[in-house]
């Protein structure tokens, strides 16, 4: 399996090199992109940009998930909370977080806050729905099994509902992380001075395709690493699940 994966990557890069060599609309080859990446690394731009972007995504994503989990639990556990909160969640889910950007600039200025806010919103909305789904789909028999062993509501919640919905929450967090990354570049269009999205935006003005490629690949690799980390956490925390 791993061998096939490696083969696919090698073939992809070879295909890319062939296209570039054939001179398809100024496409830079893998070598040119690697050279550019080296330059950007050497002068520190790439690290500064990656750090700035990573910081925004991590803050937005952490705040989003941290709020989504308790809100999702509230909605799943208390019908009243669900009735009050759900209309807002459903409504804001239909608005792409990017569409919030103009509003965020007007209300929150052009500093870090609006950028982090839209990333937060993207992560929150993905994760809250998953958590809520997790709580409402906890097997009733498990709740009954705990109750007949003497467990009250608090114990049922802590010892049954929380562990049983963990797999859903982790899936929600992975989706939320994807949404956070997806929102990043657009968020960095808001008067940013650094960041991968900002750098690509600048490169576009100068027709600097190599830099754009470096930015894209960096975003992809960082996203992949974070997703793998979450996947590892998921395997550890939900290894008890019966998988097909």
């Amino acid at each position: 399996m791993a061998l096939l994966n490696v083969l696919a990557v090698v073939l992809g890069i070879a295909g890319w090199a062939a296209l570039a060599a054939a001179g398809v609309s100024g496409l830079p080859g893998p070598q040119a992109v690697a050279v550019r990446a080296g330059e950007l690394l050497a002068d520190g731009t790439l690290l500064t940009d990656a750090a700035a972007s990573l910081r925004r995504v991590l803050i937005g994503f952490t705040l989003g998930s941290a709020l989504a989990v308790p809100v999702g639990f509230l909605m799943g556990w208390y019908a009243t909370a669900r009735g009050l909160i759900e209309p807002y969640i459903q409504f804001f889910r239909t608005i792409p977080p990017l569409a919030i950007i103009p509003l965020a600039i007007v209300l929150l200025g052009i500093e870090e806050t609006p950028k982090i806010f839209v990333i937060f919103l993207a992560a929150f909305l993905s994760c809250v729905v998953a958590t809520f789904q997790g709580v409402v789909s906890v097997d009733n028999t498990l709740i009954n099994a705990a109750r007949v062993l003497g467990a009250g509501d608090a114990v049922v919640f802590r010892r049954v509902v929380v562990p049983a919905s963990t797999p859903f929450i982790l899936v929600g967090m992975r989706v939320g992380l994807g949404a956070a990354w997806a929102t990043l570049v657009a968020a960095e269009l808001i008067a940013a001075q650094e960041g991968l999205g900002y750098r690509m935006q600048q490169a576009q003005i100068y027709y600097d395709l190599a830099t754009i490629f470096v930015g894209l690949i960096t975003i992809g690799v960082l996203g992949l690493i974070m997703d793998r980390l979450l996947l590892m956490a998921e395997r550890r925390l939900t290894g008890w699940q019966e998988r097909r």
Partner: protein
Amino acid sequence: MTTKISFRSVSRTFQVGDNEFQALDRVDLDIADREFVTVVGPSGCGKSTLLNIAAGLIEPTDGEVRVDDRPVAGPGPDRGVIFQQYALFPWLTVQQNVEFGLKVAKVARAERRQRARHFIDLVGLSDFADALPKTLSGGMRQRCAIARAYAVNPNILLMDEPFGALDALTRVQLQDQLLATWTAEQRTVMFITHDVDEAVYLANRVIVMAARPGRLHEVIDVDLPHPRTEAIRLSERFTAIRNRVWHAVYHQTPLEGTPR
């Protein structure tokens, strides 16, 4: 003999869409202390509902259930319940599952471990104490669920088709094991099944229910000696009772005026 569980004119209706469905219609039943009662009946006769009402998981729409002459108000550790779907907590090991009720009752760690260990040994899962439920077979899962119920020492066991999903051999083994512990510890057992042989083999009394609406149909005493053995299973007396129960279950005349 003193009465342990007493159903007093228990009725229960469920709302299904716009229709009301009468799951139980005025059920009167007394179960004596240390009695082993099995309940059989066609599907939809409300036998599981009856058990869940005794467990305190469902409330009757009318009438009441008394346990030890006190009305049932919600579930409690005095009534252990064993579900057909095992209902083990999949994120806990066998040991942790068995300790669950003890932990809720705030039993000290050392004693908890020891008591759980005792019941795990009793059901023959000693080598699997640290295994997760997903690695166990159906029979082993049900053994674990039984150990978990025993651990909190309930004086009533409510069993809802506990062996229904198991293969025939495992089922017979668990039946014999259940009877052995019942003889040793003399709990009151209410056991739901759709298997007529099982109902007769285990019980002091077989309660036959009828459907639409769910109600008591016939109560059949099982005067077979204890301990129950293979020889009893093959005896003429067993066959005679079994046939009687079979007839009561499968040749019920519908109530007049009830749509079929």
